[in-house]
């Protein structure tokens, strides 16, 4: 279609042959993006005027945050621990359930197409739900706020680790699996000795990576009432107590950075 409107350029080589060079599609794509950006700016009310006039407010808040309120540390500590507990338990439980779920979703192990399709659909549906929305729903269902947060993280971990794992299982070398089946092992035994050793490092490393991300997510879940440090973030902003907010953010950065460093150390070792 595009080639008919803008015919390809003809280049005659020195030996007389004619080569066609297709016209670049970049201008068309650029035009579409520009139109989309224009309408998006209209819908969202984007205005540089407001931005330049009022951006100083943002830096006033930042300036306040840069003077952390050290006295607030006692209040942060229990909530920070509860955030860590939520993300740790949710991640471990989720990663454990993700393995059988991934197994059921991999087309090369399970021959029943219906089970594979159902499992894949469930995993991708779970993944599209933003964690905060899951947490919001869970707060209505469960009694304790921390449980709601844990459940939200648990479901997200299943979907994330599950998806990466079934992709890994579908890409493993099936030779060993077939050889073991042919010498009379059951499917489960063959899976245990042929597939697990191939995917185990990837599985552990993915789970650790997911845990890292979950600590970040868990930090905001409190905003919808699901326990953890998000509750304090909401309160301090409500009271415009930005120096306490700065303290929370500082503690959060330190925690996340520590966890990332530890997990990166182990992930490098695994691969």
């Amino acid at each position: 279609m595009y080639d008919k409107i803008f015919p390809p350029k003809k280049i005659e080589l020195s030996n007389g042959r004619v080569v066609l060079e297709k016209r670049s599609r970049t201008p068309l794509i650029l035009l579409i993006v520009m139109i989309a950006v224009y309408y998006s700016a209209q819908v969202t009310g984007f205005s540089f005027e407001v931005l330049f006039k009022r951006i100083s407010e943002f830096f006033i808040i930042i300036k306040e945050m840069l003077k952390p309120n050290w006295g607030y540390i006692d209040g942060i500590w229990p909530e920070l621990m509860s955030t860590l507990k939520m993300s740790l338990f949710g991640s471990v439980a989720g990663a454990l359930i993700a393995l059988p779920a991934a197994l059921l979703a991999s087309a090369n192990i399970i021959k029943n197409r219906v089970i594979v399709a159902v499992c894949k659909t469930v995993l991708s549906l779970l993944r599209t739900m933003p964690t905060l929305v899951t947490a919001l729903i869970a707060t209505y269902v469960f009694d304790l706020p921390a449980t709601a947060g844990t459940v939200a993280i648990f479901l997200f971990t299943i979907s994330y680790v599950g998806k990466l794992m079934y992709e890994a299982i579908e890409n493993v070398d099936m030779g060993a699996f077939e050889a073991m089946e042919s010498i009379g092992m059951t499917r489960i035994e063959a899976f245990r000795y042929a597939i697990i050793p191939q995917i185990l490092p990837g599985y552990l490393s993915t789970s650790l990576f997911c845990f890292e991300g979950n600590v970040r997510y868990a930090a905001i879940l409190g905003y919808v009432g699901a326990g953890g440090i998000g509750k304090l973030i909401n309160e301090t902003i409500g009271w415009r107590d930005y120096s306490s907010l700065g303290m929370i953010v500082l503690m959060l950065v330190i925690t996340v950075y520590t966890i990332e460093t530890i997990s990166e150390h182990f992930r490098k070792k695994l691969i």
Partner: protein
Amino acid sequence: MTTIEKQLLQAPRNHRYVLTVVAIVVILLAWSVTEFSLKLDSNGMKIASNIVGGLLNPDLDFLFNLSDKGVIYLLWETFAIALLGTIVGAILAVPLAFLAASNIVPKPISWIIRLLLIFIRTVPALVYGLMFIRVTGPGPFAGVLTIGITSIGMLAKLYVDAIEELDVKVLESMTSIGCTTFEKIRYGIIPQLASIFLSVMIYRFDMNMREAAILGLVGAGGIGAPLIFAMQGYKWEQVGSILIGLVILILIIEFISNKLRSKLVNG
């Protein structure tokens, strides 16, 4: 003793190391379970069944309503926030990425910028959202700025990886045949970076859709605010239609983004 047995015995033994790690994990796990209890809210089960009922039985009027209160408009607004935010973030991330690449600027500068990026990345999106609402007032504009600034962290980090892997041999050969600096950038650097940068941007856009969907919870536009109001008002049919719309939009965007990215990577 056969060679295979010998080889087996030669394998390094790290039982103690593995055991220590496992013990630490188990202790941490035991500690983390203390705050967990499966106790349901007094009418938790009823609400759970109501949500399922709402999902199976969505408010179709609300779902297909084309006015600015319907799900379709709200999704379009969410999409617009994510798109514009990604573009703002992608533009702001480029200079930061070049300043953080250790093969372009001196080590201390790249280190400081990296630290800054870690800070930008760790502050939760909702905090930025609440801060920008003080700047622009509640509404989608605050959402755009929030998405923009939260995207910078990840985009810049992935850009830096691409910049540090730049093939400098191309540039050397261009110098040797007498290209100017501008020509070197245009034909030596941009072709190497453009496809990776674009692929990273598309990936981040995919993530930003989810992010934009939750920003409404703090009043920064998009579909989050109607969702939380519907839940607080126990209007489960509306909750159902919002969730269905959201999931379908995110699935479509994920599909398109995967297609585009595999095309970009494989040429």
